[in-house]
């Protein structure tokens, strides 16, 4: 009889190879965490700026705030998905994490993305670069429109 145990938080597997029993249980997976600084237009983001993490356009309960004058943000721990349930509660390994920034009622998407990886804490320095669009106008009346990316 041999017992195999995998120790990574979130997945527990017990096997008796003699065929007596096998138990596989998914606990809430250890999160994927991110830390670093946030710069807006090359300057540290002001205290109170809120950063949220999104995977496949779904927001998980992980908001964090910029906390220091250097623009550093609190560790952002992004939930993982419980494979035992039909619902998607968070990320799975190699999912892309999009960071959205809320500041004074305005919302932005960070230039960088993260990769969800359970039990890790990755440094990602975030920046926001304002998008500039050029519309060429001719003399006289012009019919124009502005395209906006939903965030």
């Amino acid at each position: 009889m041999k017992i195999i145990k995998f120790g990574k938080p979130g997945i527990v597997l017990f096997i008796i190879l003699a065929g007596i029993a096998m138990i596989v249980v998914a606990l809430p997976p250890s999160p994927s965490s991110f830390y670093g600084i946030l710069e807006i237009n090359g300057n540290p983001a002001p205290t109170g700026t809120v950063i949220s993490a999104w995977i496949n356009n779904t927001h998980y309960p992980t908001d964090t705030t910029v906390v220091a004058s250097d623009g550093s943000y609190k560790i952002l721990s992004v939930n993982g998905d419980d494979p035992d349930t039909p619902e998607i509660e968070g990320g799975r390994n190699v999912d892309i994490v999009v960071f959205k920034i809320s500041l004074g009622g305005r919302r932005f998407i960070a230039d960088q993305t993260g990769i969800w990886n359970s039990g890790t804490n990755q440094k990602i320095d975030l920046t926001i670069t304002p998008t500039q669009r050029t519309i060429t106008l001719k003399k006289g009346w012009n019919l124009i429109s502005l395209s906006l990316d939903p965030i």
Partner: protein
Amino acid sequence: MVHHKSGYTIFLVIIFFIVSITYAINTGITSETRSFEVKEVQHFSISLSGNWSLISTPYKLINSTTRSFVNSVYGMDWTLEHYVGPGWITADFNTSEVQWQLENIDRRYGYYLRLNASSTVEIDGVYINKTNISLKGGWNMIGYPSNSTKGISTALSSITGKWTMLFALYNNTWTMEDPKTPPFPWEIKNLTPGRGYWINISEDTTLIINETITL
């Protein structure tokens, strides 16, 4: 006249009593009994191998900040995580204290601690005779605030019939207890001070850890 004198005296006596009572109330010159509970500060060590463990503190910590809790391993590569359903809070050696979402350690809860090498977490605190731990339906990451190892049925007697599964992770090895299944080699037999646990609850309830202190 006598009447007046007598009335004046009575008036002065009443004023004196009013002034005296007001003074006593305002200055706190009253007789009362106060009782004090003296608790001895205890030291506790949690020896850990590298990698992940699920730990807790058996005490109410003297200094409950995360920074104090990890002081003995602060120079190492470490990560501390706690599940506050439905999300997680984290502290990590890579970041400064102001960046930690996990700012305090509470004896009611369990915490994942990852170390890159063997070490010992050293803590100081006081035992609390009785601790109530509110549990929500589903998974809860709990501590075991007790000064003694107890059998599962005794330690979890306040929630008998309401828990469906219990897990422990210590020095990278999982153990579990499922009250519905026959005993397995990996069964948790006792709850141990310093360990943390995942417990699955069928309905919202309160776990009561009672402690008897021997002086």
